[in-house]
């Protein structure tokens, strides 16, 4: 990790040690009791951080180093790019928390997993965002009483098969229209398969504590703003962690190492799966990156397009934040494996 974040983290760190809260915790109740005194310290930390940053600027030589500046460009751009989608996501999640009662969810969601999971997948088509927005939404869906498997299916399907993503894929691959179909099918299958897997798990306690909210405000609109801003701050914090990791790895692992494996189909499939995880590119943009690597087979690039929206570094960080670390540890490898297998099979059939 670059030294930039080390310094900047140091500026933020007092808030962590002062109130004795661990940095990464998934125990929501802990926060929602309102027992954290950060509110009082927060503005001062910000001011102090800005002051430190200003002092560092122009004085510390390595801060103007090319690589550091490139790192910061990548890091900030991933954050900025994700922000609108994150905001859209938390607005929806706030609306769910405020206006959707568990009783209502139980009425409209089919009881049986084999119906609930595919319909959740299809519902994912309706959200024109990318992956950052769907994480808080899925969290609130679980909290609102949606079957966990259905919420997870939605989590995986929404960023991959919505109209915006499919259109941008079609624009990026004007001569390979079947790739759009293949992406749709493979992503949908991935979401369904993971959802079904979760539905069949007997131990679902991993998600039990998700999004447990204590009402401390009356009124639906107040609750809406409350939940939306809390989700934004929460998911946004983890997004920043993921963006740092992605920017660092983008710099450390040059994309040109790719060229060395272009000849082997197996290697390039694995390589593209790893690349999708590392680059953490928004699902609306990944098609253009894949289109920019024409020396590889369509199937291996399909793997890139199917893996990216369901699992990557910034998503793992966000899952850990919203659903808990133990969940993320189980969920990430399974999703990755299912996505790769599904993309390879669909690639063989359609492409």
């Amino acid at each position, binding site marked *: 990790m670059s030294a930039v974040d080390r310094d900047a983290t140091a500026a933020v760190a007092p808030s962590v040690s002062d109130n004795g809260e661990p940095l990464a915790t998934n125990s929501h109740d802990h926060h929602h009791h*309102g027992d*954290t005194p950060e*509110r009082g310290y927060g503005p001062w930390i910000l001011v102090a951080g800005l002051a430190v940053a200003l002092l560092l600027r122009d004085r510390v030589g390595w801060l103007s180093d090319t690589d550091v500046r490139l790192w910061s460009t*990548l890091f900030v751009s991933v954050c*900025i*790019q994700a922000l609108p989608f*994150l*905001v859209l996501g938390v607005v929806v999640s706030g609306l769910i928390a405020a206006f959707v009662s568990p009783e209502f969810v139980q009425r409209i969601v089919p009881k049986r997993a084999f119906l609930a999971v595919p319909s959740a997948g299809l519902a994912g088509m309706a959200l024109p965002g990318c992956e950052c927005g769907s994480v808080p939404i899925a969290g609130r869906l679980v909290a609102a009483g949606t079957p966990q498997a259905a919420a997870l299916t939605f989590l995986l399907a929404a960023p991959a098969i919505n109209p915006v993503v499919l259109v941008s894929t079609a624009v990026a691959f004007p001569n390979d229209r079947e790739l759009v179909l293949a992406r749709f099918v493979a992503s949908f299958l991935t979401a369904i398969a993971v959802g079904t897997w979760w539905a069949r798990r007997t131990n679902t306690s991993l998600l039990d504590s998700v999004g447990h909210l204590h009402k401390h405000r009356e009124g639906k609109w107040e609750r809406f703003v409350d939940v939306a801003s809390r989700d934004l*701050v929460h998911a946004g914090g983890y997004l920043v962690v993921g963006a740092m990791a992605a920017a660092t790895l983008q710099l450390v692992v040059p994309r040109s190492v790719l060229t060395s494996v272009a000849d082997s189909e197996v290697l390039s499939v694995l390589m593209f799966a790893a690349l999708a995880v590392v680059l953490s590119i928004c699902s609306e*943009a990944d098609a253009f990156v894949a289109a920019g690597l024409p020396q590889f087979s369509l199937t291996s690039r399909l793997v890139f397009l199917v893996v990216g929206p369901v699992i990557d570094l910034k998503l793992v960080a966000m899952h850990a934040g919203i659903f808990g670390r133990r969940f993320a540890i189980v969920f990430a490898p399974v999703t990755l494996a299912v996505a790769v297998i599904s993309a390879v099979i669909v690639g063989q059939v359609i492409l």
Partner: protein
Amino acid sequence: MLVLGAVIARLLRSGGFGMFVQQHMQYPLMAAAVVLLIFGGYEAIAGVREERRDAASVKRSTGPTIGWLLMLPLLVLVAVAPTALGAAAADRVDAYTPTQTNSSYSPLDTSKGPVEMRVFEFLDRALWDDTRTLEGAAVRLEGLVVNDPDVPDGFKLTRFMVSCCAADGIPLQVSVHAPSVALPDDTWVVADIVWRPPDQPYHSPGGPSSVEADAVSVVEVPDAPNDPYESPY
């Protein structure tokens, strides 16, 4: 959150967002900034009100500690002054080769001097236009200088193609032969160039790996254009 919204709004007004994300992202960003400002304002007012009501028992938190990491990008912005993608980034990624998209190309009107063109269109015409509309025509491109040992008597005129944010940037490059020009990396130039047709077809084994051109004139531009990246749309 107020701060975040305000910073985004400021980036939008100053056009500084252009180095991070594609132009069309400004509208979603604008909406996001408005929502952030509303939320932030609401939280601030509600917070003050509740503090007044009783400071002891009703303490609210704006959220988990991890949320303060949201301030990190702002601190980095202040401390490091990120730059737009340039030569350093171009070194790390293979240049983009457009795939065939058009079946016919409109003829170029060279009567009014050099034809202004996006780098993408230049590459596209050079690589795929069988009617060779590019041949002999002076074309005006704007891009960055990237010095490269492959082009000893010139430079690679480079423009990044960014579809969403800088992290997905891919360089578009034309090898410009300009023996009299020696400019440092990352200089913005407006170059009038003429395509140099390859000896062998581009898509044959042993064919050239880059699109080449001869410079007619290369003029340095003091500032990067407002939109430093090309969009694939």
